[in-house]
């Protein structure tokens, strides 16, 4: 039965108020983001007057300058490599581990599960200093014994660190999914003569596709946006950098050089890939979040 509510004037006022508040919050998000996009095509002289004027023309030179002069182009390439590599390592390592930890009974299983769960509480930024020192000591040792070092200022090592620190959350999320599957799938596959490895890769992993996509989405965002580890492990002045760190340098340089246009062009370069991804998979992302439960 439908309950018919009378629209009282207080009710209408309440609704107007709600719209007002919601719109205000929406505006506070859309306007600054849109402002940055507009600012990225403004000429430097346009930044000294009223901030709300529209750009006089499309000054694409900002992007060209950011890409070449501020090396954002090569940083972009580094970021793409680091993110892709870290995702690949993470999937190759985490998928089999989560599968075994959730579906086989063996010694140390409880202990390992407990360790990975505990890992959820270890924040990477708490341990970035010891990771840095460990790699630096490793470099010193390598230099003394072999005459060369490769641990710091290396984007491959950075990708490995990213993958390793994303393991607890990824295994937690995947295990949760694997645990819900009935055991009949494996038994049927074993009877048909498939080995353990084949059953895992051919039967189980394809079924886990939705969770895998969720994992790729979340970790893509966190790897692409990360800057503290990258700043610490890629610290050499002439060494490689990732996009957010390059942007951070650009923002700090801007304070003295006042090259606003280039800075906002850099800002657009960092956020555009994530925004495009978000628009494409917006539904999946907000749904996947509730599947996964939590992420700090």
């Amino acid at each position, binding site marked *: 039965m439908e309950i018919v509510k009378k629209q009282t004037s207080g009710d209408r006022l309440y609704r107007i108020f*709600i719209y007002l508040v919601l719109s205000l919050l929406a505006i506070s998000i859309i306007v600054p983001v849109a402002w940055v996009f507009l600012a990225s095509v403004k000429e430097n002289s346009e930044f000294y007057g009223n901030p709300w004027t529209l750009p006089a023309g499309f000054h694409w030179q900002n992007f060209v300058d950011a890409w070449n002069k501020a090396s954002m182009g090569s940083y972009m390439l580094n970021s793409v490599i680091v993110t892709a590599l870290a995702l690949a390592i993470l999937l190759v390592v985490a998928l089999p581990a989560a599968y075994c930890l959730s579906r086989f009974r063996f010694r140390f299983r409880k202990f390992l599960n407990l360790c990975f769960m505990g*890992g959820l509480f270890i924040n990477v930024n708490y341990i970035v200093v010891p990771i840095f020192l460990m790699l630096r000591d490793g470099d010193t040792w390598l230099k003394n014994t072999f005459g060369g070092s490769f641990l710091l200022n290396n984007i491959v090592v950075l990708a490995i660190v990213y993958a390793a620190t994303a393991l607890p959350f990824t295994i937690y999320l995947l295990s949760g999914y694997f645990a819900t599957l009935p055991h009949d799938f494996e038994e049927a596959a074993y009877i048909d003569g498939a080995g353990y490895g084949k059953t895992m890769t051919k039967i189980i992993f394809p079924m886990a596709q939705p969770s895998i996509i969720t994992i790729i989405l979340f970790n893509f965002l966190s790897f692409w946006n990360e800057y503290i580890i990258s700043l610490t492990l890629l610290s050499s002045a002439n060494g490689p950098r990732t996009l*957010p760190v390059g*942007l951070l340098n650009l923002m700090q340089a801007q304070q003295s050089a006042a090259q606003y246009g280039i800075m906002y062009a850099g800002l657009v370069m960092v956020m555009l890939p994530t925004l495009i991804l978000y628009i494409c998979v917006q539904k999946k992302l907000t749904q996947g979040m509730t599947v996964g439960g939590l992420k700090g």
Partner: protein
Amino acid sequence: MRTNRRRSGFIALCVAPATILFFIFMILPTINVFRMSLFQRGAYSPTETFVGMGNFTALMKDTNFIRSMQNTILLVVVVTIITFALALIFANILTREKLVGQNFFRVVFYIPNILSVVVISGIFSAIYKPENGMLNSIIGLFRDMTNPILWKGESLVMVSLIIAMVWQAIGYYMVMYMASMAAVPNSLYESSALDGAGRWTQFFQITLPLIWTNIRTTLTFFIISTINMAFLFVKAMTSGGPNGASEVALSYMYGQKDAGLYGYSMAIGVVIFLFSFLLSALVNKVTKREPLEF
């Protein structure tokens, strides 16, 4: 027997890489945080001298550290309260009321969560800029702006940080609570409406108790992540300035590492570790309720 060995071999092969990576890059550094906090180590030589609790006693006398802890606590408390209150209220409105553009609001509110903190601090620099920044130009419509408001000045910097952090976090938690609120059966609201319960009564008597378990777990994680997010924001937005007014515990730790005081830096790390554990245990205890079924 043969199949049994193959089974163990398979398991070992699957679990070993993850365990090794996890051990090297997470367990070992965590142990090292605690171990190194008891030592003094020079900036460029790996030699360590044992100083026992020396680093910690020095820490207790360090006024900069105490201020950074105060700032951390302030941010954790204020950001958590504002974010959770607003996220819950907005989520409730968007699930309970039939509004035009519901999905639009949901999509927009989530955007800050996908942006890098570096990008967000860039956006907020444009908002907070004293001369012709977005915020001051709007306020300038209502009052005289001959001496502009310094949003990143010593007195307002924490407020500015809080605004930016709430702006970033609110959408994520809202979307999360919308999902759990949508699971609450509508019949409960209908019958309570017949009994004369208004919106606020429904919110406090039905919605909140029924999703309490979810709120509780997210609250614990939020506190841990706020300690960390505070660091990300401070490092990118203010670098702890002006004059250390916005320094938080983790950024102070990072600063000591840059100064080469590794042992001291790790003593700060230990304090933060313990602090976050105690705080989440406390929150867990305080928020304990009998779980309700529906």
